[in-house]
């Protein structure tokens, strides 16, 4: 099956800083999504992005399908951005990476 690697595993930022999270896939996928799991455990879908670039407020994501990776950009981070960010890819079911634990300090 598909292997998904996320980096970095942990990231600590000061409020206002920018960051880039990366997701690498072992094989091509036609379905790639980014999620934020908040401190209460709820998973929120941030992007459905099998290819190309999308932006939503301070967040943007880029997937380069031919090179089997995706990037999530967080600009002007806020304490509410804290949590675990997961990417998942598949051809019908999402296989997830182990996540990036982001802590944004005030």
């Amino acid at each position, binding site marked *: 099956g598909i292997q998904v690697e996320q980096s970095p595993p942990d990231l600590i930022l000061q409020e206002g800083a920018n960051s880039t999270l990366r997701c690498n896939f072992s094989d091509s996928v*036609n*379905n790639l999504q980014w999620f934020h799991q908040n401190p209460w*455990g*709820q998973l929120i879908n941030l992007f459905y992005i099998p290819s190309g670039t999308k932006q939503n407020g301070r967040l943007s994501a880029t997937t380069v399908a031919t090179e089997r990776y995706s990037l999530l950009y967080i600009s002007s981070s806020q304490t509410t951005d804290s949590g675990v960010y997961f990417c998942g890819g598949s051809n*019908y079911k999402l296989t997830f990476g182990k996540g990036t634990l982001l802590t944004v300090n005030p």
Partner: protein
Amino acid sequence: GAGVSQSPSNKVTEKGKDVELRCDPISGHTALYWYRQSLGQGLEFLIYFQGNSAPDKSGLPSDRFSAERTGGSVSTLTIQRTQQEDSAVYLCASSSTVNEKLFFGSGTQLSVL
């Protein structure tokens, strides 16, 4: 419904008992997934439904685990003779069809004593 609904939100049971976890997907969503998340870990795929059929059950850890979906809507995950290693958060997700945007429920926290 407005979102994916799971019940109960918490379940504490004794080792050896059977439990049933329920998932009510977003109305009209044909694809439904069950995942498991152990403390501090990632998301482990369990089973996928398309309509009432389960084309992929490959993630079910043992024959103590089973799931069904009726009427193309509600799904039930059943764990028989629970063991302590079954303790985890069980998450349900749905999408309008396969390979579309996935929406998760809030999960059921299962604790086996």
